[in-house]
């Protein structure tokens, strides 16, 4: 796949769409022209049942695949290109993957739940296989040789001493062929044809470490981010948020911003923003605008009491997910009980830049440029807030300043939409740093309780793990409803909190076992800076920090080696293999707590273990930490990560993906905590919301990649985030003999615990 081509196509597409409003079909022609493939008019409508919605062969034989998800810099598009190349028998270098544009791709759900390859590839794989079958059929006719006697290589079909190319057969024309569609949108969307995709032993491109397409454009500064999008007539907008959460504007003195050229106030319901011709003017106008806010009550609890609040708050939803055996009877009969509670704070996406979006809302239609990882859904939300039919809004994804779930980018799109509609011009919105940190949806704070009953022989006869916290879906996982965005709530789409949390994902088979969760109401239902939603591996880090710490606590209580104790109870053969391979690679020294501890001067060193699964991916980790007993500083120094996500499509990309997961997860475990006072969030920048810096980065992350060619690919974007906090906590315990049960493990907290 040609990196320049892809970035060029993006840029030119933008140019083509920026200059004029286009119907959804037109850019396809623009794209085709660009690929040098004169695709004639008459493309079937963009719909999952149309093969032409998934793959196209240009007149030059180059293949374009249309992927309804996107890539955040982990190479999902490369993997999709590899899969398409293998199914179609074309060289990888001839495949271009177009993604994340609702005008060019079907809604495959965007980036979501590490499904980019796991489910996202299914439709592309099947469509490509079907395209190859059709081409083979046509070639057989043309060559007068039965299809079974034809061979395909590099887009050339040979048989009976004759040859014909894909380009000659279909180049620049549409397949006009129907596929079976499972009638699902989003992650589960799948299509099938008559062709059977290849078996893994036939893969040539899958399994190779092919480099990414977007690296050079980022390194040489030639590619656009969403923040760089500029369309003719565009104004710069800023939204103004209240100092006290829940306050709404009562009156506005528009004359206070008269000095700024073209500055205008946009008010709709409780939404208030400003636009100006120049960005710097918009920024200053937003600061200077005199607004009288309503007297909102200071609604948030004192931060130190947040966990008490969670414990005491009425339960909104109670769910038991696993209930094996008579747990209560087993607890009653246990010789002793091991019990512990763990706490995890609100965390911020804290993306590298505050979210940005450009919206051009016109009568009857709109175009959205968004960094949201779910652009199709953002388009649907924007359509609702603008009161337009969904198919009249085109959402184009452009790389934003990072995306780890339901961050602030969908909010920015809705903000820009409201303002663009109000002023009748395209509007670009980017927040200030304090808006990114302060007002993005937060990962939920929670408390977790583990309980185990041990019999006289040291066997675990009962195990219970319960979580209680804010919902992971107070804000829905995507922005298809304005009620899940700040602008939406402010202009009058009331939010109805959905309730969800989760349980540990592992295969421990204790004699009796109960796992479940409880959620509580949000602190503020409308436009809250502490609204909660999906942050990378939603609720995974908190649950498994607690559950894997607790497994270690049981192992300690019975004097067992932590790895041996896990192996004693884990039942899934893949889990067992990953745990063993990881411990072996790390040269794990077996023995009870204290076996893997050293001290020199102020430095206490120790090693910890943790494991978890996530939708079919298994991760185990050995972590070495050093704790400075004087300062309390923790250095998570070395990691050995065992990783089994089925068949590995691109090993080099997978390693880099795991490294990023580890670093971000360590950052969350050691540093990250949203702070707030009674009025609002107070962690509004990088000083008040520190993340791991370079001096604290691990020395090494060694991966043990277990490849399972016979197994469909599972996800890798999040699973290795999951067990890291638990492994670090277990390593701190091993190093110091002190169990840290509240995250993050900041120097102050660790020092206090050691005192």
């Amino acid at each position, binding site marked *: 796949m040609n990196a320049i081509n892809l970035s060029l196509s993006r840029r030119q597409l933008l140019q083509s769409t920026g200059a004029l409003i286009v119907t959804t079909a037109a850019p396809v022609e623009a794209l085709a022209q660009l690929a040098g493939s004169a695709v004639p008019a008459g493309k079937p409508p963009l719909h999952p049942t149309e093969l032409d919605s998934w793959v196209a062969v240009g007149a030059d034989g180059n293949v374009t695949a249309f992927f309804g998800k996107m890539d955040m810099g982990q190479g999902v598009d490369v993997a999709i290109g590899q899969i398409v190349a293998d199914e179609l028998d074309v060289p990888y270098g001839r495949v271009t993957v177009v993604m994340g544009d609702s005008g060019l791709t079907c809604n495959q759900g965007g980036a979501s739940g590490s499904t980019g390859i796991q489910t996202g590839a299914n439709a592309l794989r099947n469509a490509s296989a079907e395209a190859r079958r059709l081409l083979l059929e046509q070639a057989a006719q043309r060559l007068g040789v039965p299809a079974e006697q034809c061979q395909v290589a590099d887009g050339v079909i040979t048989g009976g001493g004759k040859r014909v190319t894909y380009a000659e057969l279909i180049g620049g024309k549409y397949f006009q062929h129907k596929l079976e569609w499972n009638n699902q949108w989003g992650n589960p969307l799948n299509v099938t044809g008559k062709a059977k995709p290849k078996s893994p032993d036939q893969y040539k491109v899958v399994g190779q470490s092919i480099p990414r397409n977007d690296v050079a454009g980022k390194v040489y500064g030639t590619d656009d981010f969403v923040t760089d999008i500029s369309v003719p007539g565009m104004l710069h907008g800023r939204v103004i948020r209240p100092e006290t959460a829940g306050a709404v504007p009562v009156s506005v003195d528009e004359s206070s911003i008269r000095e700024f050229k073209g500055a205008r106030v946009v008010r709709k319901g409780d939404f208030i923003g400003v636009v100006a011709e120049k960005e710097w003017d918009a920024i200053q106008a937003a600061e200077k605008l005199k607004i009288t806010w309503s007297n909102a009550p200071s609604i948030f609890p004192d931060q130190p009491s947040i966990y008490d609040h969670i414990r005491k708050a009425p339960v909104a939803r109670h769910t038991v997910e696993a209930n094996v055996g008579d747990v209560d009877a087993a607890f009653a009969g246990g010789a002793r009980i091991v019990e512990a509670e763990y706490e995890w704070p609100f965390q911020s996406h804290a993306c590298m830049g505050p979210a940005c979006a450009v919206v051009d809302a016109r009568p009857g239609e709109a175009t959205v440029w968004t960094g949201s990882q779910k652009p199709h859904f953002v388009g649907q939300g924007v359509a609702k807030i603008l009161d337009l039919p969904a198919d009249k809004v085109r959402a184009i994804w452009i790389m934003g300043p990072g995306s780890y779930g339901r961050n602030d980018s969908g909010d920015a799109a809705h903000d820009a939409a409201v303002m663009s509609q109000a002023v009748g011009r395209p509007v670009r919105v980017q927040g200030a*740093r304090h808006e990114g940190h302060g007002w993005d949806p937060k990962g939920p704070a929670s408390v977790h309780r583990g309980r185990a009953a041990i019999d006289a022989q040291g066997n675990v006869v009962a195990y219970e793990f319960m979580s209680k916290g804010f919902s992971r879906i107070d804000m829905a996982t995507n922005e298809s409803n304005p009620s899940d965005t700040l602008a939406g709530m402010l202009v009058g789409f009331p939010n109805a909190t959905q309730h969800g949390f989760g349980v540990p994902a592992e295969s421990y088979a204790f004699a009796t076992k109960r796992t479940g969760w409880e959620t509580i109401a949000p602190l503020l239902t409308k436009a809250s800076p502490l609204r909660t939603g999906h942050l990378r591996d939603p609720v995974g880090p908190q649950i498994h920090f607690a559950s894997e710490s607790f497994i270690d606590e049981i192992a300690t209580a019975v004097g067992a080696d932590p790895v041996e104790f896990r192996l004693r109870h884990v039942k899934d053969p893949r889990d067992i293999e990953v745990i063993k391979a990881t411990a072996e690679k790390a040269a794990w020294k077996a023995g009870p707590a204290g076996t893997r501890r050293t001290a020199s001067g102020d430095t206490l060193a120790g090693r910890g273990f943790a494991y978890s699964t996530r939708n079919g991916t298994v991760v185990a980790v050995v972590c070495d930490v050093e704790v400075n007993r004087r300062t309390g500083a923790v250095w998570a120094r070395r990691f050995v990560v065992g990783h089994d996500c089925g068949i590995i499509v691109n090993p080099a990309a997978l390693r880099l993906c795991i490294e990023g997961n580890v670093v971000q997860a360590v950052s969350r475990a050691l540093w990250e905590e949203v702070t707030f006072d009674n009025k609002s969030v107070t962690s509004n920048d990088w000083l008040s919301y520190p993340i791991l810096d370079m001096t604290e980065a691990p020395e090494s992350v060694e991966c043990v990649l277990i490849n399972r060619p016979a197994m469909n690919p599972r996800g890798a974007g999040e699973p290795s985030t999951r067990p890291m906090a638990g492994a670090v906590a277990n390593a701190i315990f091993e190093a110091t003999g002190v169990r840290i049960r509240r995250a993050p493990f900041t120097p102050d907290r660790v020092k206090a615990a050691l005192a």
Partner: protein
Amino acid sequence: MTQRISLSVNGRVQTIDADPDMPLLYALRNDLGLSNPHFGCGLAQCGACTVHIDGEPVRSCVTPVSAADGVQITTLAGLGTPEKPHPVQKAYVDEQVPQCGYCVNGWIMTAAAFLKKTPKPTDGQIREALSGLKCRCGTHLAILRAVKRAAAIG
């Protein structure tokens, strides 16, 4: 009130009329259309907006545009190109460092200036020199590899 300011960026001189207090970042991005420096924080806390001024890494989000009048400004695109890459850029590509890439500008510009002064740095020196930058995607290990590689090929 606006002031006439002449900006020399990547060897090309252009004149703009701007509020002298406006941060250089907005002049580069909006007046000159040079979008390599990014808005990350506007607080000198992350490095996303870094440019070189007379060879020194400077955070353009807190540098008034008036202070840039008459100096030599270099952006990421001015540092090197695919045809003539700066060693740090080449190493970044070789190591496939970026994820989202929004931070890349700051790290490369800062590392390039650092390596000029410290061509054969230790691991500790690199970590210290880059400690004031942020990468939210967590590409820290790949960055370290790339800077070491750049030092080796530099």
